[in-house]
């Protein structure tokens, strides 16, 4: 834990840490920039690991317990690295009424992992989201962040198989 006044060094020489430091600097290294800084880590590296949380907490002089508390409280933050591809199935109310639970069950069966997990070869991560706000196109699936509306089981499986064949 850094003492008051001294800045910890980034966990590695990776240039992306400069982006993270940039976000913190923009906010004057204020403690309230914790969530903003963690967002930058996740958008740069894809997830938050212990070293990243320690670095951000030390730089902002936030207790480690608080930083870890925040990182685990918010669903948006991943603590494990995502797979090469991510399939996110929306489970908001409109999608639920249009049968999204069947999509989730089918994807879980196909990939052999529960939602929130990555296949053992590190290829595909299966996620669920609480409403992405495209309810007019329900049921909705995000394939590597790209929104696909009125999704059928067949279309989703096709996508999963394309990824598996890569």
């Amino acid at each position, binding site marked *: 834990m850094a003492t008051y006044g001294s800045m910890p060094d980034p966990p590695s020489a990776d240039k992306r840490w400069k982006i993270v430091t940039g976000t913190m600097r923009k906010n004057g290294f*204020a*403690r*309230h*920039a*914790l*969530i*903003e800084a*963690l*967002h930058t880590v996740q958008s740069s590296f894809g997830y938050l690991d212990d070293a990243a949380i320690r670095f951000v907490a030390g730089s902002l002089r*936030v207790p480690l317990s*608080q930083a870890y*508390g*925040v990182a685990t*409280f*918010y*669903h*948006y*933050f991943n603590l494990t690295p995502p797979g090469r591809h991510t399939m996110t199935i929306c*489970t*908001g*109310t*409109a999608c*639920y*009424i*249009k049968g999204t639970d069947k999509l989730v069950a089918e994807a879980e069966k196909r990939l052999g992992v529960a939602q929130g997990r990555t296949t053992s070869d590190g290829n595909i991560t299966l996620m669920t*989201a*609480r*409403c*992405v*706000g*495209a*309810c*007019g*196109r*329900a049921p*909705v699936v995000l394939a590597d962040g*790209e*929104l*696909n*509306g009125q999704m059928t089981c067949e279309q989703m499986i096709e996508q999963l198989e394309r990824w598996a064949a890569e």
Partner: protein
Amino acid sequence: MNLEELEQIAENLREGNARFDHEINVCMGTGCLSQHSDRLKDELAKAVAASGKKVLVRRTGCMGLCAAGPLVLIDPDKTLYQHVNTAHAETVVNSLGSEPVAELQCNLRAHFEEQVHVVLENSGHIDPEKIDDYIARDGYKALVKALTEMTPGDVIREVTESGLRGRGGGGYPTGLKWSTVAKAAGDAKYVICNGDEGDPGAFMDRSVLESDPQRVLEGMAIAAYAVGASKGYVYVRAEYPLAVSRLTASLREARRRGLLGANICNTQFSFDVEIRLGAGAFVCGEETALIASIEGKRGTPRPRPPYPAVGGLWNKPTLINNVETFANIPPILRNGGKWFARLGTEKSKGTKVFALTGKITNTGLVEVPMGISLRQIIEGIGGGVPGGHAFKAVQTGGPSGGCIPKELLDIEVSYESLIQAGSMMGSGGMIVMDDTSCMVNVARFFIEFCMTESCGKCIPCRAGTAQLHTLLTRICSGSASIADLDLLIDLCGTVKETSLCGLGQTAPNPILSTLRYFKDEYMEHIVHKRCPAGVCNMQARQTDASPLEVMA
């Protein structure tokens, strides 16, 4: 900046646009973008260049009718095309100046004619990232008028007179909230725009932020002037990347035009706005939890009082309003509070934007005057339930609301009447269910949502929602007894009365409202071990019906 300069900007834009004979507006809201309306716009631009016609191809925000996307609106003839794809680009451009393309035309008179657009007046008509487009449609007139001709007290009086109530769901009178913050003593005050639209099945705020972001910033600036704040935050969900990027671009534009920043309109008033990203926590829609999140902490609520109006962000007086509430402010100041008060019912003024989804033909975004009946929205504007199925219930208010059955379809839409029906206005999600939906299963869905979204701070919500979920799972798997039903009702009361914040206090509502109108479905599950809609797997019995261990 003054009114003449605003008029000059608008005039310049109009002159520029007058060079074109036609305007093609392409909807680039999230719904249409998911069907590649961005590629469609590029194709249209190419076709225009090839044809040599004088046509402006414009990216716009949401046009509302997501079910028929991608949508294209041709001005000045006001022809609306639906399901347009890149292959149609040439046909559409060729038809300009002659007969419209019949097979693409969208003729949903009933859908559009019963709507009244106040909040959505610019959605689908302007490029959301171009501030001049907004100014050309009377944008920022209200702010300039407030700063140069009105005192903060005048502004609050006008908002009070309009009768506007909070559009986030609670319905607290906006004018009263503003005057409380204005009266509160403090060296610094803050204005926060609550764009943490966590209610699953609702996307009004996303659409307003994506389609007309300047309107929200203008509303916030007027509010800041009225209450004496100089700093604002927009708290928006990280799940809405398009809204965030358009908002970021809009902030830059507004600063460039001198409509945000120091000494706006050469007055003493300075105001700037920062964006704060949510990180996927439903509870952050609760105002004290949202404030904790902006302060960089876990989003847990705290007891009130003190209310944010007195001690909010960093313990300073803070005004928190919803996106749609701020979006209503510019037209109120432009046209006067009396104009706004003429719309709607006695106690619920103005219009309300609803996200109409589920088992309904015309899914999308609609804006209706308060006082309209649910039947008019669902059967008229929404086009009814598709596929020959029968309407069963409409869910409003999200996880805090309830299901309204078909017997009550003729009630008017207002804060009071929806509460009387056992539901609530909520932020504006309206999910239609037909005979293929099991109401017990729907109640279980919402309780599961509340259980996973409970922040864990208070016991009734953390443990109560988990036990409610267990009981409902038992009912849905055919292993419940009548005693379980009594326990369920009893526990609903306890959670409602003893939870710390709105999340827990309203979590039992979906159960209570379905029990009120669809008790026979519950009895069918419990007594005859049968799911009338055929949704629940009654053979599952013991698999996941064992009580959840929750640390109290």
